[in-house]
């Protein structure tokens, strides 16, 4: 009985064959897509990478960088490298490691203008002059921020060292030295370096100059190193910061709720009420 029914099976229609063959592709594609995106997600996640001056935010940078290396070719100090397969950085994108070669802060920023896609944006590193013309200003770059390990920095031990302070291209502005009394000896001072977040460009000359075996001052990407106070905290004594509060309230939806009860005025309650 079964055999008979098999014999009379109609041949598959062309349409059905086409659909089956397409689905075969879909099955393979699904497996491929998962493997592919698993790798891509992994390759994207490299939070500790330092980008060239003028780089836009990391997430946008990854989408916008075409991996051409024009910035790398323009760099006169061989600071910038393109990530290789083993670098744990999205392959082909430019980065630098300050302990090997820091950014020497060229005044004309040769690496930024050649960028064809805008992943390096010259407006992020240019100052508007009074006449409206823009001039490149490397001090505006924010490649990262230097952070100090005060446990291993020998200046915090009381040993005299101002290597990072002296190496800083914004000496006295981006790194300052705090003098405090050394109670252990009673007659010396601690000369402890401190990084000023509003001025540090993240060039890494300090990291390069640091004398400890592994640098005690390192440049971290802003997204990693910086916290965020959030809307809840405003410097009430600072007019500029107070504006931040106003901006926020203008943007936000009013949160006052009106109920039948609250829409009535308290005075009305006293005058017309059931007193």
């Amino acid at each position, binding site marked *: 009985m079964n055999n008979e029914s098999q014999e009379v099976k109609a041949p598959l229609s062309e349409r059905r064959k086409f659909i089956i063959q397409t689905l075969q592709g879909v099955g393979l594609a699904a497996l491929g897509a998962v493997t592919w995106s698993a790798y891509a997600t992994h390759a994207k996640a490299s939070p500790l990478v330092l980008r060239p001056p003028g780089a836009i935010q990391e997430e946008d940078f990854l*989408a916008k960088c075409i991996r*051409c290396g024009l910035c790398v070719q323009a760099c006169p100090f061989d600071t910038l490298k393109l990530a290789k397969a083993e670098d744990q950085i999205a*392959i082909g994108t430019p980065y630098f490691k300050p302990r090997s070669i820091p950014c020497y802060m060229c005044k004309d920023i040769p690496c930024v203008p050649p960028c064809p*896609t805008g992943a390096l944006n010259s407006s992020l590193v240019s100052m508007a002059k009074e006449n409206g013309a823009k001039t490149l200003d490397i001090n505006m770059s924010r490649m990262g921020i230097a952070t100090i390990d005060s446990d291993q920095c020998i200046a915090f031990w009381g040993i005299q060292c101002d290597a990072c302070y002296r190496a800083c291209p914004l000496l006295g502005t981006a790194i300052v030295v705090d003098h405090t009394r050394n109670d252990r000896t009673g007659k010396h001072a601690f000369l402890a370096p401190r990084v000023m977040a509003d001025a540090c460009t993240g060039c890494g000359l300090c990291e390069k100059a640091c004398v400890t075996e592994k640098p005690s001052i390192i440049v971290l990407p802003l997204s990693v190193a910086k916290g965020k106070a959030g809307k809840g905290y405003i410097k009430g004594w600072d007019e500029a910061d107070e504006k931040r509060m106003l901006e926020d309230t203008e943007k936000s939806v009013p949160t006052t709720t009106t109920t039948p009860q609250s829409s009535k005025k308290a005075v009305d309650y006293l005058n017309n009420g059931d007193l």
Partner: protein
Amino acid sequence: MNWLFKHRFLISRRFVQLSLILLYGAANWWGLKVLQGNLGSSSIMGKIPLSDPYAVIQMSAAGAILGFNALLGALIIAVFYAVFGGRAFCSWVCPVNMVTDAANWLRRLLRFDEAERKVWMSRNIRYWILGLSIPLSFILGIAAFELISPIGILSRGLIYGMGFGSAVIISVFLFDLFAIKNGFCGHICPLGGFYSLLGRFSIFRVKHDQQKCTLCMKCVNICPERQVLSMVGKKSEFVTNTECTNCGRCVEVCDDDALNFNIRAFKKANKE
């Protein structure tokens, strides 16, 4: 002399491929500003931009609003291949072509074809990967194929240093040598698929003359995309299948002058 003539396109292709790498390299190593950048995006004499249109499409899908130079560069390249080159990028520019051609040459020399078990793989996989790369770029926010592209790895590697990328290139070589003939360029690579689609109406084509053909099949044996030569010995016509890379190997090996480059005629010749 005859050998040179028999390899005239091969020699020209290697010359073009190697000169491009040398020019890119010279810009990086010695600051010679003739051709800067790499195959992703470059700049001629610091003025004319060129960029990889497939990379630009992926990046746009990833949500990037690209700079003018990148878009103009992609347009220049796209128009060139759409009108003239067809899929010529693959055989005249791409450095991976040298790797896979080397694998193919060894294959012929060591007669792998005669002994190995045949693994069938669709030549359409490249279009599936091409199709996948766009939504994946959109979802991941990064140009998906550029993250894994052996073309990018090799072209950057030759200019900026290979590192572990050489493992990727060696694996492509071994895949083509031992596993599947023309496995990478002829089956998998979505950039080849992209240029196949882009160059659909390009004008430089190989033309077959059936009257002269002696059916020796040297052309079909040497062709990396042998499906494009389906008309050999049957019909006099242009190779219109867009998977032809215009490498010219069939023209060189033909002893009967039955294959030649020509400007494609779009109007069908009047039937007698």
